[in-house]
């Protein structure tokens, strides 16, 4: 990473190579399919490179990247909604593949609104605190708590039986 914030791509490449896999996994949980996750990760990295002089100066560039990823995801969802309103031809989302628990989780996540989904992923996958999630999503801490509580209940209801089966059999 370029400590002086120069536009040297070497520092960016080093950062991106180390962090792309982690970003991709978060994107996978947000998007629910590999193709969209790759696109989101790539867009995030491109935006980071565009503003690398700023990103490289951040206290925690990885957190900066996570913020870019989440906000890009939410912006993309808003754009899709506009397209839906405009053209209202929406193909079925790609079917989820993988082990049963993964399929159940990703299906349950897909039923959450985008912001609620982002909150859950940031809170329970990225292990961020309520305050950090609230700052990242520009909302109040009580909103994060209430949304996460509701989302967690919904996810638990979907995952519960499956989890008991896999852990106790």
């Amino acid at each position, binding site marked *: 990473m370029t400590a002086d914030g120069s536009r040297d791509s070497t520092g*960016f*490449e080093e950062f*991106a190579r180390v962090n*792309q*896999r982690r970003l991709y*996994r*978060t994107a*996978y*949980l947000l*998007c629910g*399919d*590999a193709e*969209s*996750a*790759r*696109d989101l*990760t*790539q*867009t995030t*990295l*491109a*935006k980071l*490179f*565009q503003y690398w002089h700023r990103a490289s100066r951040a206290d925690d560039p990885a957190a900066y990247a996570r913020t870019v990823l989440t906000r890009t995801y939410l912006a993309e969802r*808003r*754009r*899709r*909604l*506009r*397209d*839906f*309103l*405009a*053209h*209202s*031809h*929406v193909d079925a*989302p*790609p079917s989820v593949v*993988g*082990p049963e*628990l*993964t399929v159940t*989780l*990703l299906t349950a996540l897909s039923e959450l*609104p985008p912001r609620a989904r982002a909150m859950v*992923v940031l809170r*329970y*996958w990225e292990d961020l605190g309520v305050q950090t999630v609230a700052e990242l999503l520009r909302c109040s801490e*009580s*909103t994060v*708590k*209430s949304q*996460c*509580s509701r989302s*967690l209940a919904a*996810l638990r209801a979907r*995952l*519960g039986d499956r*989890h008991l089966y896999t852990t106790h059999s």
Partner: protein
Amino acid sequence: MDIFPEGAPQESGARLVREAMAEAAEGAPPLPDLVPVALAEGRRRRTRARAAIGGTAAGVVVLGVLGATLPSWGTGTGTGGGAAQVGASAVPSMGHGTPSPTLTTPATGFPPPPSFTEPPRKPVHVEPTTGESSMADLPAAERARQEEFQQKAAVVLDELLPAAFGTVRPVDLAVSRYQGGSGGRVFPVVFSVRPTGDEPGSPTQEPCWYGPEKTYRCEKAALPGGITARTVTAVGSSKGGKSIVGVSVRFTFKDSTVVLSADGDDSAVVSAPVTVDQLLHVARDQRFLRLVRYAEAFPMEPGRESVHGG
């Protein structure tokens, strides 16, 4: 009082979700090295951003020079008169003066432009996402034609939409994209005239899809010329118990699908300040239909495609 404490009762649920997420993330398909593509895309973004800044600066200089050298240009109708003339000359003419190359071929069906009494509206810049094209990618002549159309469409929409919508400006991402706004709020607008393409059937003749009554309403409405339009009122998203509602009108005009939609401000949690009836009023107006006729005769958008949801 905190009615949603994150205490022990939730811990088992949180652990369950964490474990499931870890398993899902670990099982994600392999990732190719994205760095080279991201570098190329990032460089393109930098170039575009610089070009946008340069273009704005150049525009300011040109307007400044014109303003300085031609102080009495125009009819002098108030403060906007001179600026309106500069604006009209800065944008290639659609029907008078020097025609743009793509418009000269067939003169039939060439609609007269709506009256142009305002200065050009500075387009809103929206950065395209990966794989998305923008008007900046178009050949110069076609881009000029589409920008001119956008300017005229923005004026017509501005005149016909409710005042609460604020000033309507073009968005430089696509000819179909506009944006209204007032008081710091932003209301996205889509005005699209898209060739129906080879797909069988007309999309607007399909029956309404009925979603949950509280969040989605689809109805039919009559437009001039025996055209049947389909209107949709839909809740886009909800925050803090408030719903953000958007509206749209769709109809088929000759071989094109016409869509006019207005969306709410997601950040401000405000619905589009327009009803379906008000949007239909826009769609029935002859100034709007003139724009539709032009865009149908001289298409600016690619043929119909479906949109992936998810």
